[in-house]
């Protein structure tokens, strides 16, 4: 039925263009594809793969994508410069290359210098910039640089994985689809993603906050009790929510769209009937929202670093702020997950998790309060159409607990919003099925 309707629309659109439009009269010749810009305005967009946490002696490559494109949809030419310095007092060194596919910069020398100045760990400051065709872009500056960390020792922990044996969890909240009270919005996809609640969080009392972006509201509740509803304007189907320790909720306007869009964060005080005015968190492609202490932080691309909402401009950290000047370093690289806790130039409790499967997105990473970490990582196997989330509690160089959780995503959530840690060592998962949204709870022993 759906396919037949689609073919009908296809036929209509093709016929429409052919029958109705006096195409030849209005058609212009196709513009060429000059390698340099003529009259069209050029824009450069920079992306890179942040090293975040590397081991002493490793080669450190920095892949850089610099897309120089014009408003006419053609390619333009640009050069990319990477500058780096290892150790706070060291001098900056730079290298430049023409932008193009598979461009990488080797910043191993700066990493060596960083560790030479410190005993156990050090940091490298760096910037990435591109210019050409009348456009420019940069990530980090010499006064507000990007950073990665180098550690002398990082033990490797192999995580055992059993595919297909997923924990079931218990239902913490169920909300059927619909637009009325106690229901959550659903928009079925037509050659597009199926949309449901994009994000959720769990507060210190164990209440679930479900962000129903389609209906611009928050649903708050637990178990089978009644759901409170808070109207939050300015949300979209891909907004993100994080709840602070004192019950204040923060809602990020969007987690996608375009790179130069301002990112807004709304504050919903406890017990209030709505949100306060939005605070701009800067411009970029927002990835995650988190609360440390009582302050909201946003992780944004293309810098791929965290910035404080309403905080000083240009202050970014590669790791998620934990409060007290600490940050949680986490990165997926080469089939492994690396974790560490940084304070200043010092990194402690660095560990590398290796899995007998392909590693995808790192859904969650959090310290356990005792020098270990709880992570949820997406694993998949080639050629077998199998994937699952693996929950791992690692401490003291050992796997304390690990189990699999199935992906249950009838409707799309924001990419990194499927899992949250709750009080008393509980892990929560946002799932969906044809009947509605279900938040599942799993028990993690020893996790904070």
């Amino acid at each position, binding site marked *: 039925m759906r396919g037949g309707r689609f073919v009908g629309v296809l036929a209509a659109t093709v016929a429409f263009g052919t029958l109705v439009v006096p195409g030849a009269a209005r058609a212009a010749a196709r513009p060429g594809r000059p390698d340099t810009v003529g009259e069209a305005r050029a824009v450069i967009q920079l992306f890179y793969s942040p090293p975040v946490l590397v081991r002493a002696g490793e080669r450190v490559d920095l892949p850089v994508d610099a897309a120089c494109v014009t408003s006419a949809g053609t390619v333009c030419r640009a050069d990319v410069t990477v500058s780096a310095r290892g150790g706070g007092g060291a001098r900056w060194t730079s290298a430049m290359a023409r932008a193009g596919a598979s461009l*990488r910069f080797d910043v191993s020398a700066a990493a060596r210098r960083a560790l030479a100045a410190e005993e156990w760990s050090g940091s490298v400051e760096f910037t990435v910039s591109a210019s050409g065709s009348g456009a420019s872009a940069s990530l980090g500056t010499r006064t507000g640089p990007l950073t990665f960390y180098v550690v002398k020792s990082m033990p490797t922990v192999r995580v055992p994985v059993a595919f297909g044996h997923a924990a079931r969890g218990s239902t913490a909240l169920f909300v059927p689809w619909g637009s009325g009270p106690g229901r959550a919005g659903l928009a079925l996809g037509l050659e597009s993603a199926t949309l449901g609640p994009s994000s959720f969080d769990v507060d210190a009392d164990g209440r679930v906050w479900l962000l129903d972006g389609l209906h611009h509201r928050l649903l708050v509740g637990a178990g089978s009790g009644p759901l409170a509803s808070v109207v939050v304007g300015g949300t979209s189907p891909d907004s993100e929510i994080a709840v602070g320790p004192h019950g204040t909720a923060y809602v990020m306007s969007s987690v996608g769209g375009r790179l130069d869009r301002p990112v807004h964060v709304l504050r919903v005080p406890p017990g209030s009937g709505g949100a306060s005015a939005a605070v701009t968190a800067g411009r970029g492609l927002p990835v995650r929202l988190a609360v440390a202490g009582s302050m909201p932080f946003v992780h944004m691309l293309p810098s791929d670093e965290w910035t404080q909402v309403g905080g000083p401009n240009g202050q970014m950290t590669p790791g998620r702020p934990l409060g007290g000047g600490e940050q949680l370093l986490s990165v997926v690289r080469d089939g492994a997950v690396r974790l560490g806790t940084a304070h200043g130039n010092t990194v402690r409790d660095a560990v590398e998790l290796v899995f007998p499967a392909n590693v995808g997105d790192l859904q969650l990473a959090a310290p356990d309060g005792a020098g270990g970490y709880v992570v949820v990582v997406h694993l*998949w196997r080639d050629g077998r159409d199998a994937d699952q989330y693996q929950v791992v509690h690692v401490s003291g160089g050992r796997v304390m607990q690990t189990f699999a959780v199935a992906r249950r995503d009838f409707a799309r959530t924001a990419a990194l919003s499927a899992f949250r840690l709750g009080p008393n060592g509980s892990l929560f998962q946002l799932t969906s099925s044809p009947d509605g949204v279900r938040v599942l709870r799993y028990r993690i022993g020893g996790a904070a």
Partner: protein
Amino acid sequence: MKRLMVTLGLAMAAVVALPGTPAHASWVGNNCYVNNVLDSHVRRSDALAYGKVAIDEGYEWGGGCWNDNSRDDTPGQPNSSGEGPDCSGFVFKSWELRLSMGASGFTWWDKFQNVHGPYTSTAFHSPQASWPFFKLPDKKYSTTMYMDAFAKDGHIGMIYGESQPQDGTDTILEALGDAYGAGLWIESYRGNAAYSAIRREGWTPDCYPRCGGGEPRGSVAVP
């Protein structure tokens, strides 16, 4: 008589094929026109530059026409001959596929031409051997390249860059839906077994027309 029958046949075909509303009452009717040309030496960078223009330009199921004013000109008007592509139509035009199903080669489509092409997301996900795109053997980062796509039955999006965010996600260029439009999103499609990695065949290397240095190149050392 024969001429009359042909005329009647064409008239009936138009009634069946066209939307019920007057053509020029829709956004497509007022803004879109036919303009395309056979193309060659098409690079991945050309596809990215073309696709980037569609960012923020709305979404239309079965659609394929947009301008470059960076806003959805028909927000909240699904299935109304409005602005924007759907997910598979966006890939069809960005990849410069041809209108005949399975045809090889490249055709450049003006963004103002309302064309979707014959491929649904399901077709992209499970291509036939003779089609000008194919399923990659795996979804490893070392296997995929930018402007390859991740497709499942119901949705498809293109990999925007080869760099990798620290969370192991991908930046995807996609037409995500009526509520989103077209744009860039962070996605976890790579690890999702429902998605396959799909590659368009026949790209010209990005270095064209100055490929003297050869591809690929190694790292550039920062001293």
